[in-house]
């Protein structure tokens, strides 16, 4: 593989710098929360958890543009590359949830 090609691939996989706060707003505004929950916690009935469910930015963008399942497509016409990066940054910023053992109601 030539150095030029390697640089191209790396460049392609490097996401635009995203803003997590803007991403949170977009997550609500364009309807991501409807299936994935406001904390991206997911639902077995509507859409998978995105919180702490790491995928690469490239795969993320690829999937929202052309989803293989039931998710509606978010084309570049309605979600720009920068907006996608903001949403991705929001998802990455979400904190880990508390451990099961720390929640009495879930220890039962």
């Amino acid at each position, binding site marked *: 593989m030539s150095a030029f090609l390697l640089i191209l691939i790396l460049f392609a996989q490097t996401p635009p710098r995203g803003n997590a706060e803007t991403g949170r707003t977009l997550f609500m505004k364009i*309807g991501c929360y409807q299936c994935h929950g406001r904390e991206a916690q997911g*639902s077995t009935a509507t859409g998978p958890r995105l919180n702490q469910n790491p995928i690469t930015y490239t795969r993320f963008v690829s999937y929202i543009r052309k989803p293989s399942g039931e998710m509606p497509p*978010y*084309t570049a016409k309605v979600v720009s590359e920068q907006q996608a990066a903001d949403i991705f940054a929001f998802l990455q910023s979400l904190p880990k*949830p508390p451990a*099961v053992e720390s929640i009495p109601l879930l220890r*039962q």
Partner: protein
Amino acid sequence: MSKPRKFSSTRRKFLKGAAVAGAATIAPPTEAGLKARPVPRIAPLQDARAETTTPAEVDVLTSDHCGSDFMVDVLRSLDLDYVCANPGSSFRALHESIINYGGNQKPEFITCCHEESSVGMAHGYSKIEGKPLGVLAHGTVGLQHAAMAIYNAYCDRVPIFIVVGNTIDATMRRPGVEWMHSVQDAASIVRDFVKWDDTPISLQHFAESAARAFKVTMTPPMEPVLIVADSELQERPLAEKDKLRVQRVTRTSPPQGDSGAVAEAAKLLVAAQSPVIIADRAARTAAGMKYLVDLADILQAPVIDQGGRMNFPSHHPLNQSSRGRALIADADVILGLELTDFWGSVNAYRDQLERSSRRITKAGAKLISITAGDLYIKSNYQDFERYPEIDIAMAADAEATLPALTEAVKRLVTADRKNAFQARGTKLAAAHQTTLDQARVDATYGWDASPISTARLFAEVWAQIKNEDWSLVSSSQSNWPARLWKFDRYYQHIGGSGGAGVGYGAPAAVGAALANKKYGRLTVNVQNDGDLMYAPGVLWTTAHHRIPLLSVMHNNRAYHQEVMHLQRMANRHNRGIERAAIGTTIEDPNIDYSKLAQSMGLYAEGPITDPKELGPALKRAIAAVKRGEPALLDVVTQPR
């Protein structure tokens, strides 16, 4: 124009005698009897003289008993504990007979604020009690109100006994509204989704048709039935009651699968490497649940409970409901028990611009179906779903067939197969435990969020009820109860609406709570906001009739399914993806459900947005329910 008719003196004497002798005398449902019936004087009701002057001797203004008294005798023979109704003049005589002649007991009149609530209550009641509840509906407009709820019950295979008032004889209708509320063929509006209906023209005909209707509604596939009660039959003085007879109600044994088909199915199941059992409305009773456990245990086969009824204990190691898709894809034999949609269970469907589907089962996988649905199908409404290619189809009731199938399986199990079954069961038990553990981990995400996560909501409710004799009667869109709670009794889950007609949840919960009341169960309803707003008056019914029920609002302030549909369309068309909330959300202003409930006499709190407040509020609400009151907590939640 017809001429006013007059009674002869002889006739007047006869009618006076009828009034005195009461139940022993009657205008019999024969031609002679019809001639004997009193003919009302033609006088406008609005005429003050008719109200104040002494009636002429020709008038007979009272009778001690009327046809509707006999109708009450008939309803009693059907063991109807209650009739739910919004009052209507087309059944005013029957209403009066129930509360006075019948003493308002068996059936007791339950006051509803909407006919949709009446039928919805009957729907929920039946799934707890296993028998129909009566519904009275006003002619035309009342039945029109009831129609959606009847359709839900039809799709959900639930028995309901509906009586509709009507005035068939045009010359007996009061001018004005009674004409608007009369119809040539009263049942026609719902005939597509009731199993049987009749319009009796005599009291004896009413008795016989009522007995037949009861038999029909209680024979699988169970569906609502409807009898039209003509107002003249109801109101006509009752003479010669002794000549009338209340028919003995007989029951039909549910149909069992053909013995050859049962043997063939057993052979396939025993030989299978990866059998799967899918159940939807398989268990009609608690016994059905036990029969399914017996079959699964013998085969050590996974069970996917689609939740139409409480088919299988949630914590049984063979309950693999959350792994359904993977197990079906790997199966070589699939047994479907009372499936609404066998085709949809073995195919994947994609709702994108180009709708597409593909079969997800392995090539050569054998499909076995046992369903009473194969015995009864209508044309117009399409609840029968796509045509599945079944290898062994038994037109039979699953619950009635399961014992024979289990015995047939037992006879075929060899030592080798038993060892294979045990190995399979061990793997499935491990997978089941992994699923339970994963559910608890999944619940931690968004645990402290506001709006409150649905996982937190159901975990908090479970913490308060798990040591009670509880019954969850809601058709919530969330599957967290199945993941976090332990269901092992038949009445702990009653399935959904059947026809997905919104507005079912609230009345069905109230009806189920009415059935649970005599058993002292703690009835819990997690209530969707959009559903409640169809006919919130049913809350008043719970307070008025002292029906203990805990309702916890799953208030996501939207018709959320529709929000998602709008989002899908907006995305598909590449425009306006920020506006899916228009026309689909219930905000601006937010509805204060606690005030709504309080206004109708319920104990209520909310809106609750902080998850830490939920546990204490639940304790207070449950205390109210234990005092015999209905209570409601308004909880603002995440979408799903």
